[in-house]
Each structure stands twice: as C-alpha cells, then as structure tokens.
C-alpha cells in the first residue's frame, strides 16, 4: 500500500527528486548545534497553537454574556476540553519563551548580519505579532484578569498626543473595554493576525532555504565577510545532510518542547490561571493584584518608572525599532560577539535590565 502511494506520488510530483534535493543534498554546517533547532521548535509550537485554537474555536462564544461560560464549559464539560485549553495557554507562553530564546541565540551567534537582514526583520515582526496574539487572546476568556489587564493595556496608546485618544478608542471600539472590544480582539486573534503571520513565516522559511543556514561563528571561520556583490547560496558542501543529521536534532527539540509543555500542565496547572482568571469579568469591580503577562512585565515596569509616559513609550518604540533594524545598523564585519566587548556589554546590560524589570514588575 505504502509503495503504491509512493509510486503514485512519484509519477505526479517527482517524490524521489524532492527527497534527494530537499532532504539529502540539502546540507547544514558541520558545526551546527542544538540551538539552531529553536526556530523549528517555535514553528511546531505555532502549529500546536493553531490546532488547539481551532478546537477551542468550536466551543468558544465571542460575546460578553457567554464568553466566560463557554470557556468554563470547555474546561469542565467538553471531553478533553481542559487539555486543549491548557495546551493553548501553556503552549502560548512556552512559544513566546522559545521565540525569545531563538532570537537571543541568533543575535549572540551573529546570524542576523548580511545577507540575512530580511530573515532577521521577518523574525522580529513575527515576534511582535506573537505578542499581539498573546494580548488579543488574553481578553477572550472575559475573566476579571483578562478584562482589567486589557483595560490597562488598551489605555497605553492614549499617552500619545493628538493621535493617542483616537488610537485607544479604535483599539477598544469605544471609551471602555466592552463587547465591541471583545469582537475586535477576537477578529484580530483568529482572522487578521494568522494570515499575516503565515505570510511572514513562509517568507522566513523561504529566506532560510534560499540563502542557506549561517555557520555558527563559534566554530569555523566564515567566508561571508566577502563584499556582497552577487547572490551566492550558502550550500555547505562539506556539511552534514539535512536528513537524518539535522532532522534528528529538530525532532529531539520538538520532543523536549512537548515534554516541558506537559510538565507545566501536569505540575503547574494554575501557573497561568490565577484565581482572577477564574472569575467572570465585572466592569464595576476592580480587582487588586492584577499584573500583565510575564512578557509585558518589563515594559510595564519601565512605564511606571518613567514619569513622562509619552517619553517612556517613545523609548520603548525606539528600542523596538533598533531591535528590528539592527542588521542595518551594525556595520562591523566581525560576527563573533565574543570578540566585540562593547556590543557584548550593551547586550548583557539590556538583557539584565529586562530580567530585573520583569521581576520588579512581578513583585
């Protein structure tokens, strides 16, 4: 049966040729390490989010009167609904952690520099969209936590002069977080962001395959320091075949991703579901002790510390701009961060600040 299907596909799409060119002849650098598989793990993480999200979509009702009840029904009445919701919640947070780690390692290994500027920018945009996914999905359960967290976050644009109030109103669909906000966030979460994200992911994967995987600077020297006058694909003729060498590494990372996710679901089921997440939204009752998700804690704390809020937000936007356009700003030919003390110092200072602000915001 298997052979028949294979033959059927062979005569139609040239399966063997695909296998040879895309898996066996496609080579990766000899000194490639496990950190290179984080991007693939993140991609699988997105697939998990899509599958679990579609399952939740079947039962979820995007209406203020029913949203909370429908989520509770998913948790208690729908067979294995709890599992899909937990996968979606824990998976979402793990995904953000994986993407952050992926970008961190790409940065540290200098793999953002030419000719991979577009790959970096695409990845950065995907990270921002992932944050917006997190923000928009946060409101959907219509709990006290989600309602009040969104009330605070959606007021941030109003710190801008002239366009601020209008932007905040467009965001919320009015002066308050209401059913209109829920509809907008729902549409954003399930219909507007996914196609944009898919396009960026397609572009990202295409660029990686087209340009070729960058060799890590911690090992052999890189010939990419040559003047960039013509397109030359990095083929790594002396490297390992993608299959099975790198494929096994990727599969190992995916299994670890799953193991960590189910570890959190088993032993820390309420890590992302505090009591306020289990209480229906009440616009008349402001709960205490509500904080944004961990990945927004650092910007939140920074905004609290800077007295001029517009200035605080501007600084953050500038940092995002620098982060996105870094490959264009970094003119040094040396890729290895170990040989660049200034960049290393600034990078670790920013990282330590981000971690410190996150903990400060939490406690």
């Amino acid at each position, binding site marked *: 049966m298997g052979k028949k299907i294979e033959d059927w596909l062979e005569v139609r799409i040239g399966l063997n040729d695909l296998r040879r060119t895309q898996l066996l002849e496609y080579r990766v650098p000899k000194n490639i390490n496990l950190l290179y598989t984080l991007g693939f793990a993140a991609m699988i993480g997105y697939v998990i989010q899509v599958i679990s999200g579609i399952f939740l979509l079947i039962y979820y009702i995007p209406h203020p009167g029913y949203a909370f009840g429908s989520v*509770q029904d998913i*948790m*208690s009445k729908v067979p294995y609904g*709890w*599992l899909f919701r*937990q996968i979606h919640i824990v998976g979402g947070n793990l995904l953000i952690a994986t993407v952050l780690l992926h970008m961190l390692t790409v940065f540290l290994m200098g793999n953002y520099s030419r000719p991979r500027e577009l790959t970096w920018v695409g990845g950065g945009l995907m990270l921002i969209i992932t944050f917006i996914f997190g923000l928009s999905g946060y409101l959907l359960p219509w709990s006290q936590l989600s309602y*009040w967290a969104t*009330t*605070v976050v959606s*007021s*941030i644009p*109003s*710190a*801008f*002069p002239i366009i*601020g*109030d209008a932007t905040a109103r467009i965001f919320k669909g009015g002066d308050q977080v209401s059913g209109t906000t829920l509809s907008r966030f729902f549409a954003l979460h399930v219909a507007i962001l996914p196609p944009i994200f898919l396009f960026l992911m397609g572009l990202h994967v295409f660029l990686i395959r087209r340009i070729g995987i960058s060799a890590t600077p911690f090992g052999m020297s890189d010939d990419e320091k040559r003047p960039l006058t013509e397109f030359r694909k990095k083929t790594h003729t002396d490297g390992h075949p993608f299959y*099975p*060498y790198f494929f*096994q*590494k990727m599969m*190992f990372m995916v*299994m*670890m*991703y*799953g*193991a960590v*996710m*189910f*570890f959190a*679901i*088993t032993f820390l*089921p*309420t890590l992302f*579901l505090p*009591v306020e*997440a*289990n209480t*229906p939204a009440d616009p008349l009752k*402001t*709960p*205490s*002790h509500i*904080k*944004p998700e961990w990945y927004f804690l650092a910007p*939140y704390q920074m905004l*609290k510390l800077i007295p*001029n*809020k*517009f*200035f605080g*937000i*501007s600084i953050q936007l*500038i940092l995002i*701009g*620098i982060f996105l*356009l870094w490959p*264009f*700003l970094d*003119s040094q030919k040396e890729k290895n961060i170990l040989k660049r003390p200034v960049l290393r110092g600034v990078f670790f200072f920013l990282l330590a600040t981000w971690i410190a602000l996150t903990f400060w915001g939490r406690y």
Partner: protein
Amino acid sequence: MRYLLYLLIAIILVPSIAAAGYREEFEREFLSKPWAGEQVEVDACIGCHSSDTMKQEYRWIVENWKSSWHAQNNISCHDCHGGDPKDAAMSMSPSRGFIGTPKYAEVPDFCGKCHIGILKNYLESGHGKALKASGRGPVCITCHGTHRIDKASIDIINEQTCTKCHSYDRARRMKQALFVVEKKMGDMERDLKTLRSEGIFVDEKERSLFSTQAEFRALFHTVDVSLVSERTDDFTKKLSILDKNMQDTFAELRFRKNFSAFLMLLFAGMGVIIFIYSKLPKE
C-alpha cells in the same frame, strides 16, 4: 539607512520630551488601576470613624468591622446603616436613607433586611417571642455581637453565651443536633477552596452550598431541637449529592494530572529514543 533611523529617533524623542506631563486618560487608567498599586476607594463613614477627631468610643467600630465576615464579603457600613458614603456632607442624611443605630427591639428587623429567612424563624422562636412579650429577649447581637461579626459557626453556641439568659442543657442538645451537618458543611467549604485553588470554576457549587447552609442555619434560629433533628437527614442527603459532585471533580483532576503526566513521559521518552538513535553509528 542608519541616518534615516537616527532621524526617526529624533522625530519621536524631541516632541516626546517637550510634551512632558501625563495624558489624562492614561493617568486615569494606568496609574489608578491596581497594576500601579492598591486602589483606595473613598468612603466617608470609614474616613471619619478612623480619624483622630472621632470620639474614641466610636473609633473601634471600623477596626472591628474590618475583621468581620461582613467586610470579607464587601458588606459595608451603608449596607446596614444606610446613608451615602460617597458624599461626606450628606453621608448621614435621612434623605439618603441613613438609619444610624437601631433601638434594641428593632435589631432583628435591622438585620432581617438581608437575613430574611432567619428573621422569620427567629420571630417564631422562643427568643423572638420573648422579645415581643417583654422587649428584653435575646436579639441578633446577643449571640453574634456587633460590627465584628464572625462567620456563623456552631461555636457561637457555647456555655458562656447561652447561660447569660438560661441553662446550657437545651443549647447543648441543639449543638449536638447541628454537629454532623455543620461538620460536613465545613469540610465541603475546605474542599471548594481547594478546587478553586486548582483552577476549577466552583461558583455554582459554592452557591448551592451557600443556599443549603443558609437554609440550615435559618432552621436553627427556630431553636427547636426536635425540628432540627428531624430535618438533619434531608440536609445530609442534599449535601451528599453536592459532595459526590465535588468528589467527582477531584477524581477528574487526578485523571487530568495522570493523563498529562503520561503525555509528558511520552514526549520525554521519545526525545531520549531520538537522542540515542542519533548517536548510533550510521552506515
């Protein structure tokens, strides 16, 4: 490209520094919400009764109320005494429904505004009849106290309190009649708390337990031992149904834990197999 970015930074930074100060809505939403610290609600009753200008004999009221069951359930001064806590000048105006301190004989009606079932049973009881006949029978505050009102429990029935008016013998028999159901309700309350901390939405179960508790405790206010004993079976059955439901939820939680632990081990195991396989010598 770099110069373009520098220009963009300058365009954003210069006006942002110039536009110092807060935007009104941002300040209202971001800085006044709990994210930026505890929210303080204005309450004229609490403000005045806590201030140094208040007579010492009235100042303890706020402290006592703060540790009460009412405070824990957001029942504030105006819920019982009327008035308008948002408007200091009119806070004690009869036109805003201010009642103030009720007379002794009016206490049951004062509390019975909310505790309707209990009031009915109390009025039909020996306690209520004594008040009606002599104006000196026990009222709510005789057993429950004022302001520092604890959560109802059978510990309120004790020799010290009951013997203020009569012998403890009858009260002891009442306490024995109540014990089984009260203990069951106490255990179930603890279980509900555990379920809530495990992320289970228990509002429906809490409502069901609360209504059974209220009904049972209202029954107690008849101070009729034989009636309480007679109805104990009904309440035990009612509670058993709810308890079964809760135990099923606990079993479901155990299943969930085991199932996700199985999936975790499955992924970890497959990871180990892939790792070992990748280390095997290839042809």
